[in-house]
């Protein structure tokens, strides 16, 4: 899980072109949106594409997105759970 979260932080930093925030500054449980990392709706689309391209996963139910993209940990949990289901 720790390795997966580290990978996600790197991918988030690169994909979202976070210039003033480094991967090591992103907390595992830090909210990605709002007062947390400050991401916005366009970033959600980037994260959906990231999951699709890097992990071959889709967030099929829009309401699940709120939970999945809450933090790096919730993203990692979603990936872990669905990878298991897919295998």
């Amino acid at each position, binding site marked *: 899980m720790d390795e997966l979260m580290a990978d996600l932080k790197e991918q988030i930093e690169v994909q979202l072109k976070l210039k*003033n925030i480094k991967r090591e500054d992103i907390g595992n449980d830090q909210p990605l949106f709002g007062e947390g990392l*400050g991401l916005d709706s*366009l970033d959600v*689309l980037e994260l959906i*594409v990231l999951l699709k391209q890097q992990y071959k996963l889709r967030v099929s139910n829009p309401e699940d997105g709120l939970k999945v993209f809450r933090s790096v940990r919730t993203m990692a949990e979603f990936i872990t759970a669905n990878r298991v289901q897919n295998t």
Partner: protein
Amino acid sequence: MMKAYIRSAITISPQKTFNSPAFLNDLVEYNSNRLTSIEPDYSEAIDPRLIRRMSRIIKMSVASALACLKDAGIASPDAIVTGTAYGCLEDTGIFLTNMVQEDEEPVTPVAFVQSTHNTIGAQVALLIKCSRYNNTFVSGGASFENALLDAMMLLSENNAANVLVGGMDEITDMSHIVLSRLCLYKRQLVSNLNLFNINSKGTINGEGAAFFLLKNIPSANDLACIDAVATLYKPNDVAEIQQYIHSFLVSQSISYSDIDLLIFGNNGDSKNDEIYTQLQQSVFNGTPSINYKHLCGEYPTSTAFATWLGANIIKNNNIPIALDYQETSKNKINKVLIYNHYQNIYHSLILLSSC
């Protein structure tokens, strides 16, 4: 159509034109067939959280637009009008490359969202929360002129009291390679400051973003006013261009001798420049002239740079020494006529005058 008064004019170009108190007193020399804009530290003008998504052309344009509004003391204009031939080319390239690499599977959306030509007008509007008239003209080498015409019509018809109008285009590595294959640019290394002394095919690639705040009423702070703009598409020969210029001057009730300075769009390409030479030897014989594309390079909206140049010459009543202007006359520069053609397809005239 009524005059439009230029309250402020800002450009980011391959010269030191942004945040520079001096007016082109120190030209930048490039030994290349590609002139790249000198970009400022954008973090002073744009929220760093927004910069991360912006491509070079968006940053150049947004920074110019915001500085233009600030200079004019206007928080939110009645209209935003932009003209660009290539639009946000860098994002277009990223988007198309992603599509190919991902085998047409869903790709990252930001490059696509920001690849459209009206992204710049929209970004400016979003940043200043302006939900009024917003239009973008994409018409090749007449894009800026059409944006200018739209802005002037808005002012003339009292649909706006002030309009933010801009012209912009960018070079990307890919576009430079593609356009080079079409033999648009010189093959040998050439100094931009020596551009007009080399008689060869091809020009130098250029780019830039220029914004103007136009008002419908004059003020003491105006740089100059735009009397008229006209475009001509694919003329048959020089005689048709001469007739077009003549009709334009008649429509403005002025004669050739009323023009204090011509700003010509010579770009160093021997075939391209032949038209300017013929006009200088005929209708414009004896009229003082300068060129501008050795400063900014050739690109479809370069007349935005020429308009910035002309407006500042009128405002300062001074032609920078670095422009190698030979005329010794000290008379006031009241009327400046910009004549440009882009690949002998899009011809345009922009008449500026002192206020």
